[in-house]
């Protein structure tokens, strides 16, 4: 069996946390942006973002996301790990159905299937093609 085809548990957990925090972030951010003042000035928007309490939650989630993401990138290519976060589009869609009683369009179900098949394609490629410092032994060879 190709060892690259088997994802280490800590990488799987890291990717799951990345999807979870991204999902929470999208839902909270969506709420926060809806409350911003109706202006086209970037400066005014930035100022409103800095003073809105909900963006403290956004920053907290982003901090968790950043720490976790750095751990993930220690053990996988960026082009391997990043596509997994697309599953948050699926989780947001499903959460909207189960918790917000929103209806799901047939085309969205097709979209979910297409995203999952895309992630499956990426997941079946080698997780690393360049050596990270975390993947190297002190002698410089790959673990």
């Amino acid at each position: 069996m190709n060892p690259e085809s088997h994802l280490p548990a800590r990488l799987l957990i890291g990717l799951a946390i990345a999807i979870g925090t991204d999902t929470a972030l999208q839902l909270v951010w969506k709420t926060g942006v809806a409350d911003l003042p109706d202006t086209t000035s970037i400066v005014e928007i930035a100022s409103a973002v800095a003073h809105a309490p909900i963006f403290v939650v956004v920053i907290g989630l982003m901090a968790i996301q950043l720490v976790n993401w750095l751990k993930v990138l220690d053990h996988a290519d960026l082009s391997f790990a990043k596509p997994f976060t697309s599953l948050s589009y699926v989780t947001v869609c499903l959460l909207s159905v189960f918790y917000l009683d929103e209806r799901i369009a047939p085309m969205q179900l097709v979209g979910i299937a297409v995203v999952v098949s895309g992630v499956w394609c990426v997941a079946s490629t080698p997780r690393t093609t360049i050596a990270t410092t975390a993947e190297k032994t002190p002698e410089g060879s790959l673990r």
Partner: protein
Amino acid sequence: MSATAIGVLLVVVSTMVEGFGQVFLKKSALESMRRNLWIGLGVMVLTVEIVLYSGALRFLAVSTAFPLTSLSFVMVTVLSRWLLGEVITPKRWIGVGLILIGTSLIAAHA
């Protein structure tokens, strides 16, 4: 330039900016001597991306802006190949293409 065009431009630029931010974060895993520098640069660039995307939402409906954000998967893949030297196999490209189509279908019908 119309408001819609400005919004679309802001989203596209924000996905490019996110791509560079992600590359900087990955650099932190590759260069332990300059790990904090790359993380700092990455966070700074991703902060710019947040401001750009929030700005874009003032010009565009979320249902229009959200599908466009899936371009970030393409940007990240291209920049990973170009700036990090990662090997992008045809199967990985197919996966990214499917994700781009799938996320667009989900968001466009939301």
